């Protein structure tokens, strides 16, 4: 239909894109001179521990502190004791035990 073609032509004519005026674009770009911090992908967090750049960085410190707390907690808890017992690393002291060797001799571990 002629009207459809005319409408299409009119739409293209009316909607002809002109880039926004330079002043508006420059205002916008000027406001982007200062940028906020980026959101890091969660998968990047383990990589923080492998970064041997010794400059202080809170993600690495936070990860190390968390690992330290976890390790201390496990060590002081029953879980830690049971793990150590399973590995035959600890000889539970008793009044009759005169051994000074902390390791089971038949475990093959050197004193």
């Amino acid at each position: 239909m002629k009207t459809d073609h005319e409408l299409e032509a009119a739409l293209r004519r009316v909607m002809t894109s002109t880039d926004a005026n330079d002043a508006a674009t420059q205002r916008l770009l000027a406001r982007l001179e200062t940028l906020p911090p980026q959101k890091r992908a969660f998968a990047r967090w383990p990589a923080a521990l492998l970064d041997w750049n010794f400059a202080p960085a809170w993600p690495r410190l936070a990860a190390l502190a968390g690992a330290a707390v976890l390790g201390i907690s496990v060590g002081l808890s029953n879980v830690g004791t049971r793990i150590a017992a399973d590995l035959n690393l600890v000889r539970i002291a008793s009044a009759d035990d005169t051994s000074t060797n902390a390791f089971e001799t038949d475990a093959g571990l050197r004193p």
Partner: protein
Amino acid sequence: MDEPSDHDLMARTAQGDGRAFRMLAQRHAGRALSLARRMLGNEALAEEIVQDALLRVWTNAPRWRPQAAFRTWLYRVVVNLCLNARRRAPDLPLDAAADVADVAPRADAQLEARERDQRLAAAIDALPARQRAAIVLTYQEGLGNAEVAAVLDTSISSVETLLVRAKRTLRIAFVD
């Protein structure tokens, strides 16, 4: 020396390269502003929307996966922000429509054509938001239906439906 592609600039932006991001912004800000202005009919709000969209591009760049062209992603953010703005403020004050340039001597037929174009422009501004988005992306930005569907996060058949409905409404304004 070839200019870096959008993909390369986004990869560098994801690494925190502010200079690459500004190059990307400079490349696309003008078109994004035109899109937002056409969607909203308000210059000041269009600037705010595009600034917000570009800042979201920057802050989320490390999470960007190149599944679509950068322009598609940016337009999707701009269109969504515009649709949200329209939803929150349906009575947004509209800027006066720009006159269509006329370099030929005025005659009755040309005056009539110019008035018809202005009626059409006003009818486009009055379309429901998603129909207007489809019309603007197709006729102003020159996107194909597939890319319009990607921007609007919908199917190609939905885009075709939006265009059919929009043109049905616009035809009435155009013919009258």
